[in-house]
């Protein structure tokens, strides 16, 4: 029972992180019909920004400000940094290719991913770095349920993900920006003719998606501690799976898919085999795609964003 609940918690926490990254994939796919392969690397950059914020305020052992304030700073700075990065990527790499054949922006996305990953390698080296979270956030506090333990970082991840997702849904459903995003998603040309600023809408979509990735980067740094220049690819791939399993283009789908993938991974890690956990996740993806080629929420969600 203890193992079961602990696995459930682990699955939920990783699932939340995947969900946050998947939101960026799904939103960008909604408005541009583009698989943004560079998104995983944006997440990685977010994790690095968080690391340097810790160093900036004196390092894990000699923090010059209170821990809650530090976390707020990390989230805000990383979110803004990756948001600006996402907008820059859209502006300079994808916008010139709006009317090019479909394969061209895809290759550009691969190129951007290459450049981001190797730039980080060049600037900060190939070795792993650690947040050393346990030095400033004790991992013994938190909640105990039936022998399983949920520490404060994990609680924060789940709560923050829930808040962000709720905010995003409200944004898409209730605001003018959300309305124009939905309009661009359903028909870009028609939206442009109706006076919607398409460029601005797409840029803002990239901004929001990248902020989510940056926040996910910081939180995964706090939770798993080690970061390196290559963490983006696999995390991006898993998040991508999440977006697809949920039905790419659908926000609910991305969140559900993220948590689903997180659970699958956690349960196969603790109950089946560590070696095959990635393979199981990919197998689930392929099976889902074959049973429901548009993902679980793909058809029902008419509002594709």
């Amino acid at each position: 029972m203890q193992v079961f609940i602990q696995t459930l918690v682990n699955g939920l926490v990783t699932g939340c992180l995947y969900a946050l990254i998947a939101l960026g994939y799904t939103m960008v796919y909604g408005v541009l019909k583009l698989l943004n392969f560079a998104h995983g690397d944006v997440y990685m950059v977010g994790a690095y920004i968080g690391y340097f914020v810790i160093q900036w305020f004196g390092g894990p052992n000699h923090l010059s400000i209170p821990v809650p304030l530090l976390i707020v700073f990390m989230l805000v700075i990383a979110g803004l940094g990756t948001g600006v990065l996402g907008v820059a990527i859209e502006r300079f790499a994808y916008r010139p290719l709006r009317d090019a054949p479909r394969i061209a922006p895809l290759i550009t996305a691969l190129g951007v991913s290459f450049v981001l990953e190797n730039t980080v390698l060049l600037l900060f080296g190939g070795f792993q770095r650690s947040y050393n979270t346990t030095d400033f956030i004790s991992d013994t506090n938190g909640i105990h349920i039936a022998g399983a333990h949920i520490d404060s970082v994990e609680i924060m991840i789940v709560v923050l993900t829930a808040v962000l997702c709720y905010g995003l849904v409200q944004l898409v459903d209730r605001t003018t920006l959300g309305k124009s995003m939905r309009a661009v998603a359903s028909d870009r040309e028609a939206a442009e003719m109706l006076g919607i600023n398409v460029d601005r809408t797409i840029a803002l979509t990239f901004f929001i998606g990248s902020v989510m990735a940056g926040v996910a980067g910081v939180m995964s740094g706090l939770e798993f501690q080690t970061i390196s220049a290559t963490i983006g690819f696999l995390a991006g791939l898993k998040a991508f799976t999440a977006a697809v399993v949920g039905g790419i283009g659908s926000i609910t789908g991305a969140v559900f898919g993220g948590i689903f993938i997180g659970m699958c991974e956690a349960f196969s890690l603790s109950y089946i085999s560590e070696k095959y956990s990635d393979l199981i996740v990919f197998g689930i993806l392929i099976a889902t795609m074959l049973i429901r080629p548009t993902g679980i929420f793909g058809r029902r969600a008419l509002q594709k964003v």
Partner: protein
Amino acid sequence: MPQIGVDEWVAQSGERRDQGTGWRRVLYELDTRVAWWQRLALAALLGVAFGLTTNNVNLLTVGFTCLLYAILSLGLNIAAGWSGLLDLGYIAFVGFGAYGYALFSSTALGTGGSGGVHLAAFISIPIVMIAGGLVGVLIGLVALRLEGDYLAIVTLFVGQAFVEIVNNVDPGTLGGVNGIYSLDSLHGFSGNVSTPRGLYFVALIVVAVLAWLLHLLDTSRTGRAWRALRDDPLAASAMTIPVNKLKVMAFSFSAAIGALGGALFAAQQGSVFPTNFTESILILIFACLVLGGAGSIAGAIAGGIIVWALEQMLASPTDAGYLFYGLILLTLFLRIRPLWKFFAVLAGIIVFGFVAHAIVGAISSSATAGHPGSSGWIGSAVKNWVIVPHDAIGYGNILFILVIVLVLALIRVEGTARLLLVVPTVYLAACCWESRLIVNPAITTQIMLGVILIVTMAARPNGLLGTRRVEVV
């Protein structure tokens, strides 16, 4: 030939623009007069001449790998170029071919490091190709239910799953992370191909034969049907084209050629490892195809050769220097017109550098104490021009960021401001190159490759030799 429904003058003006003037005209004339088999023969002759005259073993190996990438991108071209199926799992077929060859040419299937299966290459490679084609049929059948990007995603996972499988399943036979090693060289008919020159010629023959067969396929009914499928599957099926059959066929042909490439790769390397078949290699193959021009046989071959040649040049610091400065000069020359402005900018860059170097040197002598990373005549030419401090790493990192920002700014500004901005940008890029980029050739290669991909896609979304085509939305 004027197009139907288009004003005659407009139609002819398009034709005139295609013909161009001056040397472009000459090229155009040549281009229309030379038949495809003459081009193929000419290219093959050039290949043979290279193979016979070169005695440098490294160059021959580079030549082999160039041709290997040409084979791989020819295979990918069938699925991704002609039929428009975005197959991101292609690398799994390559890996399948390589592992298949390895199993049939090593002690892997034997017990205790002896025995095993040792087939002649002319038996094992066809087996591997047919088996690869059958796997392609399987994946193709799976892919029938999926469209467009969903296909890309599922195939991407097929590629990822392949690496996981060879890493984890049956380590006794497949070797896990250690792979399979000490493979037989290509052998058969009591002959044995193991020298770089021999391998080069094998690859050359394979490329030539493939190009010939693929050209026949391209101009056949099947080839036309594939292109119809790519442009509009719905319209194609309305015209009674068997869409499903063609999709499966495209997958299996592409897989068979991928497996052939994989087998040749395994034979040349003499070993196979899971890391040989990761996504970054797939990206490299896609880069070959897309740079050369998806859908064009000549483009796929040229792309393979160019990309690998670039990769090799970037790996050696001297050649990388030529490439870096050469590309900058070429870009400036092509983009800055009229000619006197180009020379003015060039002179501006040179003077700017010497002045900056003199000023900084006068303020602090340690700021210019470092040595440029380039050796040879480039190194001595730029020694008193670029600013390289004693401890160059941190300085180079800041410069790198600065250069990226400047280049992005360059794209935004127009006219005289752009000309003025070019001068410091190029100079700082040179400083960054000499102090930081050239020190880490492996990372620099990857960055340059990514940049080349992005720039090529922005400048020519259809590749170097690809034809422009209208997308029906």
